[in-house]
């Protein structure tokens, strides 16, 4: 792993280790090393370095919430706001537990797009009416409730 033009440059072994961890972050150093033909201590050292450099940000668990009886609804909320206030709006929303993901986007207008969750449609409405609409600079909100999920994944290394 080297630093090149302020970006970390990973060699093919680092990339293979990352691919393995993205597939199964609980795979042992030994198993990864065996598959790649390197010592498990090499795998350990490389993973440690990538953790220290924040190439590996965290190890998470994906929970199937429906299987444990949580039937939350998810919605995509588009917030139209005064361009001078848009960053502040996004920062304030980012601090709220109901907001799962949040982005600013420039199409015809500068927008804040957020993926939000709530226990029910009523809770979703209360959240938007009480915590989003009153934010200074917010001029309009469009919300689409997600009815069916076809895919959800993170970026996978190829």
């Amino acid at each position, binding site marked *: 792993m080297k630093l090149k033009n302020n970006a970390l440059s990973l060699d093919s072994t680092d990339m293979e280790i990352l691919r393995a961890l993205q597939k199964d972050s609980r795979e042992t150093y030994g198993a990864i090393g065996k598959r790649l033909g390197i010592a498990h201590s090499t795998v350990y050292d490389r993973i440690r370095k990538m953790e220290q450099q924040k190439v590996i940000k965290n190890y998470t668990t994906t929970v199937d919430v429906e299987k444990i009886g949580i039937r939350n609804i998810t919605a995509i*909320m588009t917030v139209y706001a005064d361009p001078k206030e848009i960053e502040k709006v996004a920062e304030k929303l980012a601090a709220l537990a109901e907001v799962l993901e949040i982005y600013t986007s420039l199409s015809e207008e500068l927008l804040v797009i957020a993926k939000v969750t709530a226990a029910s*449609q009523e809770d979703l*409405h209360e959240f*938007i*009416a009480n915590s989003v*609409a*009153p934010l200074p600079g917010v001029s309009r*909100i*469009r*919300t689409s409730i997600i009815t069916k999920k076809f895919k959800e994944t993170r970026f996978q290394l190829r």
Partner: protein
Amino acid sequence: MKEEMNSRILRTLPREKTFYFFTSIGNYTGESAASLKEFMERVKTVNVKSLEFHLSRGDFEKWITEVLEDKKLALDVWRLQKSNLLGDSLRNQLYITVSRRYKELVAKPIFPA
């Protein structure tokens, strides 16, 4: 005492107590009312779907009772909710109801000579 109550109902509210007009769940029109006067004005101009949405849910009655603290107007709005009016008929009737109450509240008391 009555004047005090009237001015409380007519006060300007902070952002967190303001009424925000939506046309459906999560769809905010950009219109809001931070006082009874503003509310009356918005009733004339806001998308009529928003009036139908909030009236059917009892949102106006709730805001008028809990935030403006005007039980008399809340009762009139509740009666309107029961009338099942839609569209411009609803807008007109709601405007008449709110503006009548607003005029009552801003009218100066007449003292005997």
